[in-house]
């Protein structure tokens, strides 16, 4: 019998019906694992879900030890956050909601907006106490994932920051950069090295990488000084004396008169390691533990020449390090079996096996000091000229300053960037004439930024 709308429509209709039936028969919750984990970092997901060599994966280990099934899913960062925000907002539970989730420091603020007892994430204090983890996880790292003193995430990492530098080039200039105790020493050493390079046919040689258009570097320096742009209790600290002083120094280091100018903004991404460093365009940079590996992978031309050193000291802060980036693992409030989710976290993030898997090939250390493999600490690292890099990472990781996250942290970063760009432009414009007004200008732009930020913080505040 001929189909009156024609064969194409008939074929499309058959396909549509077949697709509908297939979709209905293969519904998502059929055969769903008892623990579903959402991860956004491919590197982390591979560590958890994929076998290393002939051994079992961490997920398989969990399944063997508990007798429960688990599935770790790699989901694109933005997609995961959009989905999770919608699920939390609509209080949609299983089967849509996962049982364990990874969140990154840049995205977690949005989940911290509701009052503590209304958040989509589950408070973990009871589970931490019950399973004996209190005091074993670095307190300053737990602060990042807490709101009003309640812990909502287990830190996956610490990300201490140090300075990686091309020792061979500094030595050639007669400078031992690692001897820089304070930031003043560091600047003086960099100025000396720069003068040598430039006098020897390298007019484009610069000492230190400093971002000029985003606030990443200055925020890292501020954290080292104990300043969070938005504090734990929502206080905006853009107008603090320490913030002002850091901004003025930063401007002078990056755009000030020749005598003290050591900074330069580098190429984005891996080009900083594969182009700028080998060409001597930049010779030292702030490096969190995760960046050490990228430097080694992309900057292979500098093998043996690089070294790492702690950040120079501020006169008013005890820290020789800072922190950059970070992720947590948490449990949604409406998860099916929080105890089982916790067990999964213990196996995949808090076990010796997980720490060992992470230590292979990276410098990233977990936030649980007892999991740091001390036997690897003093092993010479050939890329870093035989230096015991892990020892330094362990030492600095134990001493990272606290970093707080709020819903307006991202806005604070944008405001700091705007203040920075304005202050840098002023410095550039006046460096050859008169910079006596720099401090006042910085104060003024920080006050403007703080005002805007305070209005946004007040507007975004949600109290019951």
């Amino acid at each position, binding site marked *: 019998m001929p189909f009156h709308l024609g064969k194409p429509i008939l074929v499309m209709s058959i396909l549509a019906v077949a697709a509908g039936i297939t979709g209905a028969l293969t519904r998502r919750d059929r055969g769903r694992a008892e623990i579903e984990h959402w991860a956004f970092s491919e590197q982390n997901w591979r560590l958890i879900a994929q076998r290393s060599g002939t051994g079992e994966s961490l997920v398989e280990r969990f399944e063997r030890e508990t007798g429960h099934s688990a599935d770790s899913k790699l989901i694109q960062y933005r997609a995961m956050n959009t989905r999770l*925000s919608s699920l*939390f*907002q*609509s*209080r949609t539970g299983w089967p849509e909601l996962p049982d364990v989730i990874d969140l990154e420091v840049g*995205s977690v*603020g*949005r*989940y911290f*907006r*509701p*009052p503590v007892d*209304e*958040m*989509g994430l589950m408070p973990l204090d009871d589970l931490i106490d019950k399973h004996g983890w209190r005091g074993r996880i670095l307190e300053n790292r737990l602060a990042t994932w807490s709101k009003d003193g309640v812990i909502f995430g287990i830190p996956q990492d610490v990300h201490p920051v140090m300075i990686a530098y091309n020792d061979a080039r500094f030595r050639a200039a007669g400078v031992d950069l690692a001897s820089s105790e304070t930031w003043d020493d560091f600047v003086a050493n960099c100025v000396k090295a720069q003068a040598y390079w430039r006098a020897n046919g390298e*007019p*484009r040689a610069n000492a230190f990488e400093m*971002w*000029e*258009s*985003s606030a990443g570097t200055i925020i890292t320096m501020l954290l080292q000084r104990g300043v969070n742009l938005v504090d734990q209790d929502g206080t905006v600290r853009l107008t603090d004396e320490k913030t002002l002083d850091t901004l003025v120094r930063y401007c002078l280091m990056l755009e000030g008169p020749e005598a003290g100018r050591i900074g330069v*903004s*580098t*190429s*984005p*991404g891996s*080009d900083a390691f594969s*182009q*700028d460093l080998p060409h001597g365009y930049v010779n030292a940079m702030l490096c969190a533990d995760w960046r050490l590996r990228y430097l080694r992978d992309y900057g292979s031309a500098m093998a043996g020449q690089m070294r790492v050193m702690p950040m120079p000291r501020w006169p008013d802060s005890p820290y020789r390090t800072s922190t950059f980036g970070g992720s947590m693992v948490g449990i949604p409030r409406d998860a099916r079996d929080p105890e089982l989710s916790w067990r999964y976290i213990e196996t995949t993030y808090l076990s010796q096996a997980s720490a060992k898997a992470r230590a292979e090939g990276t410098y990233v250390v977990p936030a649980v000091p007892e999991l740091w493999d001390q036997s690897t600490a003093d092993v010479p690292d050939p890329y870093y000229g035989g230096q015991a890099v892990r020892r330094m990472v362990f030492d600095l990781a134990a001493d990272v300053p606290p970093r707080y996250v709020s*819903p*307006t942290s*991202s*806005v604070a970063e*944008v405001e700091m*960037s*705007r203040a920075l*760009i*304005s202050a840098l432009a002023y410095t550039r414009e006046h460096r050859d004439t008169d910079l006596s007004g720099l401090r006042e200008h910085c104060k003024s732009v920080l006050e403007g930024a703080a005002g*805007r930020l305070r*209005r*946004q913080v007040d*507007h*975004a505040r*949600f109290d*019951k």
Partner: protein
Amino acid sequence: MSTATGERQQDGIRRRLWAAQAKYAPYLFVSPFVVLFCAFLLYPLLRSLYMSVHQYAGSQSRVVAGRNFAFVLRDETFWLSVANTVGYTFAFLLFQIPAALGLALLLNGPRVVGRNLFRFAFFAPHLVGQVFVAVIFGLMLSRNGPLNSLLRVVWPSLEINWISDPWMARPAVVLASMWLSVGFGMIYFLAALQSVDKELYEAADVDGAGKWSQFRHVTLPGIRPVLMFMILTGTIGGLQLFELPYVLFNGPGPGAAGLTIVAYLFAWVEIGELGTASATGWVLATVVIAIAIAQVRIMRRGARDEE
């Protein structure tokens, strides 16, 4: 007798069916559109209006009346995003439309060889979308990227931070956007140019009109509807700009140079404050509608004056 009664009954049923079909079929035919319109346009519109007078945090919400609108309209950052967006829109109109028209005029010449190839080549970037173009330009405009390398051949000490310098970031967006959109405009202008009556040019030629006069008095009036369309879509597209600077700068960019109105809206979505994001969306929608109406009126008046 019974056969006649049966036929009458069947006839009656057929008539009733036909009447029902005539009555309800139109509704059935338009129902797919109506359902889709209600589900994906009307409901989201009304929902966003509802959300714009609420404050949200997770699953919690509360009525705040016009507070979100008042905040947005008083927020300096919003006005910075407006300034950026308006600046980009003007730049697009200023550079893209003449460039697109210029290319179309070149390709419309009688002696152009390989017109279809050029047409495809110029139009192709439009097919890949803003995100792809942003990624490509991110690589091209990096400090050690191809553009700077090329410029250094002429000027070895040149250092242009297209992506990280707040003063160069805006030209970078305009450059990337031109690459994306000029071909699109060119296709429309080319079609419009080919539809202009050739006899008008011949008549103008006979009357002694030069090339500029022919362009001014024959070509421009001939392509006026397309020009109007391009200005209107260019304006609306400029006001809705988001993906290109967002991906190019991986955020608001240096000195918030990439902070457009939609990026401002998105920042509130990221914070989870959907009420303020919805209020921003309604402000943007109002502005777009007002500008569109104003442009159409101005152009219609221009057309009437010329007639």
